[in-house]
């Protein structure tokens, strides 16, 4: 947080540098002395996990890019070359493909953590919106990355998703032609997607810096949802938060490693092991699992433009969420009604994900429509009303008191 730095330059060089570029004190204030609420639970480690995943994707992606060829005639073969001939190429490729899935697992947990504990509320609106921008950039990166191996799902997924822009009135089909660089998804499309897929992660890294900056201005939220009152309520980031974050990240990587090494194709689509063929449409075109809830929303609307608007609307409501929630209380721990609606929203979101993988017919369509309607009702009707009608439980006066209450006045334990 702002204020005087506790960093004391130790050596002559540090004093010299500090006068010219106070970078050591910046890092010190951000990651060493930064006051952290002492009651954070493990859901607060996902920020660190996400940073690790971004680093992992950039690292594996960079090496993949040294062996990959973005040309529609050889892209598929170049990925097979990586899998078969490059030393540990299978590890890079499975690591990167599963890395995308685990990146999204982490971001979804991170977002729902924010929803549960009201982390988007005043004064953290900008922090929340920056997070949403990261989420959008991640989706764009994941989508374009999936096109690169040039399998059947790469090709047809790209075709279906880019075609959505044709729903825009008047200029729609010109925009699609412009996006494709031709009259169908082809070599120019693959090339620009590769270029953007390489660029966007670095834009994500830039927004992550803003996100952390905003975080360090307003401070972290915590499970009690009340601001720290005194130094009693906080601990320094290092070693407290650092040790917990590193531990959680390694545990996350145990599960991640299980997927890379034992079920590397579990999150992928078998059709993507068939080379792209513009003349053969697969029976079911399905995006990666992390897009399925949005895909279900898209398909639930009978009108193409309406579907596209709803799909983007589903993310847009998250952007304005800080102003939709009228409750003064942050944490769902003290909001008996909101807590239950939160869990319904979780079920509805997972349900939408499942529906997105089902064929668009019969009962599935009806269920998708109902779930889509509920998703929007949650944000646009229930949340604004709840704040007005709900009687929150009494809030603790301080984080220390919340901790005492939680531990039942027992001495400290982990």
């Amino acid at each position, binding site marked *: 947080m702002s204020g005087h730095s506790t960093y004391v330059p130790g050596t002559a060089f540090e004093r010299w540098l500090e006068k010219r570029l106070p970078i050591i004190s910046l890092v010190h204030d951000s990651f060493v002395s930064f006051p952290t609420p002492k009651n954070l639970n493990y859901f607060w480690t996902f920020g660190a996990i996400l940073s690790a995943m971004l680093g992992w994707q950039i690292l594996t992606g960079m090496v993949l890019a040294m062996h990959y060829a973005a040309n529609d005639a050889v892209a598929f073969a170049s990925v097979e070359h990586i899998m078969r001939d490059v030393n540990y190429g299978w590890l890079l490729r499975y690591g990167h493909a599963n890395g995308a899935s685990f990146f999204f697992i982490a971001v979804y947990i991170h977002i729902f953590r924010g929803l549960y504990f009201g982390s988007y509320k005043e004064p953290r609106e900008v922090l929340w919106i920056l997070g949403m921008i990261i989420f959008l950039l991640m989706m764009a990166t994941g989508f374009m990355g999936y096109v690169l191996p040039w399998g059947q799902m790469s090709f047809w997924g790209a075709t279906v998703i880019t075609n959505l822009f044709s729903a825009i009135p008047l200029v729609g089909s010109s925009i699609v032609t412009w996006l494709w660089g031709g009259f169908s998804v082809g070599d120019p499309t693959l090339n620009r997607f590769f270029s953007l897929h390489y660029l966007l992660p670095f834009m994500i890294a830039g927004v992550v810096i803003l996100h952390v900056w905003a975080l360090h201005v307003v401070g972290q939220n915590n499970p009690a949802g009340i601001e720290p009152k005194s130094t009693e309520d906080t601990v320094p980031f290092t070693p407290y938060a650092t040790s917990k974050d590193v531990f959680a990240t*390694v545990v996350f990587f145990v599960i991640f490693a299980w997927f890379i090494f034992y079920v590397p194709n579990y999150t992928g689509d078998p059709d993507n*092991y068939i080379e792209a063929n513009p003349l053969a449409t697969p029976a079911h075109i399905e995006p990666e699992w992390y897009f399925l809830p949005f895909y279900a929303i898209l398909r639930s609307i009978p009108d193409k433009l309406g579907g596209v608007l709803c799909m983007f609307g589903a993310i847009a409501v998250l952007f304005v969420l800080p102003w939709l929630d009228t409750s003064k209380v942050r944490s769902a721990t003290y909001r008996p009604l909101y807590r239950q609606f939160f869990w319904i929203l979780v079920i509805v979101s997972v349900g939408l994900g499942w529906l997105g993988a089902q064929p668009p017919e019969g009962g599935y369509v009806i269920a998708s429509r109902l779930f889509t309607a509920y998703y929007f009702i949650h944000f646009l009707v229930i949340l604004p009303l709840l704040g007005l009608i709900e009687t929150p439980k009494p809030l603790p006066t301080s984080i220390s008191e919340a901790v005492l209450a939680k531990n039942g006045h027992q001495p400290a334990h982990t």
Partner: protein
Amino acid sequence: MTSLSKGAALVRQAVLAAGLILVAGSTWATAAEEAYEPAITKQLWSFAGPFGKFDKAQLQRGYKVYKEVCSNCHSMKFVSFRNLSQAGGPGFTEEQVKALAATVKVQDGPNDNGEMFERPGKASDRFPSPFANPEAAKAANNGAVPPDMSLLAKARSAEKSIYTWPINWLLQYQEYGPDYIYSLLNHYGPEDSKVCETGYYNTAYLGSRPCFAMPKPISDGQVTYDDGSKETVEQYSRDVSAFLMWAAEPKLEERKETGFKVIIFLIVFASLLYFTKRKIWANVAH
């Protein structure tokens, strides 16, 4: 609770109930529509599970079946002869690989006179394709292109059953490809079956109907085994499916071995970190 919040609680319960009924209803409705369910049965494979390894003798037999039967129609363009002697594969010696490669003719060139020429295959050559191009393959196979076999064992649908699919990652089920190929070769219906107007009747085929363009490729006694294994369709299909899994995933053994070490390391590292973290937090109530 105010009466308004009671109302909210009621709405919540109603929504939940309606959702559950709808999901259950839609599952049932679509289950009733699906008349054809491919008969794919899970098999025991030596390469399944965390310590799975290919059975070298089985891969060699599978290669023989592939070479003598399947390769007449199917290409395998990402696999080279040299792969046959690589670690984690069928375990042919380099001499055997050279001899196997030499049995094929490969077009090379141009030479110094600008002419293409034919030479015997080398270990570094890819497996030859039976047809010059997809059009030729199509013309020879009643309009259907036999798919390339390099990745076939990973290119057919994983199990999507709502009951077992969510835990398949925990059970490490990744053998849906070989299970499918094995089932396919064993589920041809009687030849005089009238079910299909075009194509052949096969009750394991993953499609909307049990009919597809591949005639029954193999019958009992067709391929000679010199290690005393049974010369039955059942045994042939088991061997060739294992071989196709290897062809699709030649680094499977290296992957699983590395994975075991990495996961043990991460677990030990995580435990050490856990105790460090505990110690650091010991005198802070949190």
